[in-house]
């Protein structure tokens, strides 16, 4: 998979959290901590839900569908948000991505 996957590739990718990344839920925020760098990252509650969905093994497309249904939003819009979030997490090395059809996590 290329360094910067296309939105379609990303939506069907297998995403996992590396062992050095942990997250905890606070009341209105999820804090993601990279144990290698010691850096903290804040996610709002929806982004926290997306991260939890990805951690459970759902693809970004499946997570987007679930969020769109839960909040009654347009699925294409949510897919764009999920792709943007995944790219941000990738840039910060908070998730690993394997392509669709690759071995999953």
């Amino acid at each position, binding site marked *: 998979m290329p360094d910067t996957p296309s939105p379609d590739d990303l939506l069907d990718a297998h995403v996992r959290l590396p062992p*050095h990344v942990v997250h*905890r839920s*606070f*009341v209105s*925020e999820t*804090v993601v*901590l990279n*144990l290698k760098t*010691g850096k903290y990252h*804040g996610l709002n509650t929806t982004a926290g839900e997306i991260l939890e969905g990805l951690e459970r093994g759902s693809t970004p497309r499946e997570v987007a569908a679930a969020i769109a249904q839960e909040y009654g939003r347009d699925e294409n819009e949510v897919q764009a948000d999920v792709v943007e979030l995944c790219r941000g997490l990738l840039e910060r090395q908070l998730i690993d991505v394997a392509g669709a059809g690759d071995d999953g996590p």
Partner: protein
Amino acid sequence: MTVKQRPRIRQSVAVEAFGLPLELPEGLLTCALRPATEGELRPPTLVTVEPDPIAPWDVDRVERVREMQHQGRVIWSVDFDQELGFQMQAPGLATMVVTNDGLTVRCAPVANTADIAWSAVIPAQALPLAATLRYLEVLHASAVTVDGRALVFCAAPGVGKSSLAAQLVLRGAGLLSDDAVAIDDDLVVHPSTGAVHLRSAELERLDQPARDRLGIGADTRFDGRAVGSVAPAEPAPLHAVCLLERAPDGPAVEPVEAVDPAILLGSTFNLSVRSPERLLRHLDFCARIATDVAVVRLRITPGIDAVTLAGEVLRCL
């Protein structure tokens, strides 16, 4: 010719501070400490005073994890060596080494420096570090007990957490700490020492009986602040974390429904221990406080000083 001054040989005493059993030379610390708990099974953290200077560590092996400067001069530093532990240096006062297990604190004061000048670094820095290494979390906060429950006051330096704690003690609260407070896995808050530090403006507001109750005598001024000492309170379950701030207006006491994690994470006293285990423990600790403990904002506004705020705290919490 330099004459080396060897420290007096002193007996050790068994005490408790920051949730740790301690063994240290008698009379080394002038502030009040809790006596050791009978039947304590954990090994004590041993505090020793070295007769000789501690040799500098190999700069190629150490990582400088903390450094404070004043007017371009290093006034405080902490170096970390994976095998040896943490070396804390307060130039002109002392060098201290805390081992990675937090069980040993070796102190080497600069020659001819009075105990009262350098030994304050032990409870101010070395013991909080040892407590962190022994699996407690230490917050930069003052804390008191009221009706057997601990109230913790987090604030930036100079906001007034010591003054608020002192005012609460004058109203009958027990003092847990006026600067750094240790909390264990069960969210029990442990006393540090009985030291009370007050800036001169705060001191001037106190009459003599109040100064006496805080153990502030005419001869206890040190480093621009008055230092008193009271008997530390017993450990108590954490009831509320209070975020103390100066503000132009707003209610004196206000519950916080969703605390900003950055505030809790940033309230740690210890930025030196950055192992993955400790970072995870610290995150878990903050998440537990956010979900299990009442968090309250306390405001010092133009119309509210520490005296009034102490009354509001007792009324509302």
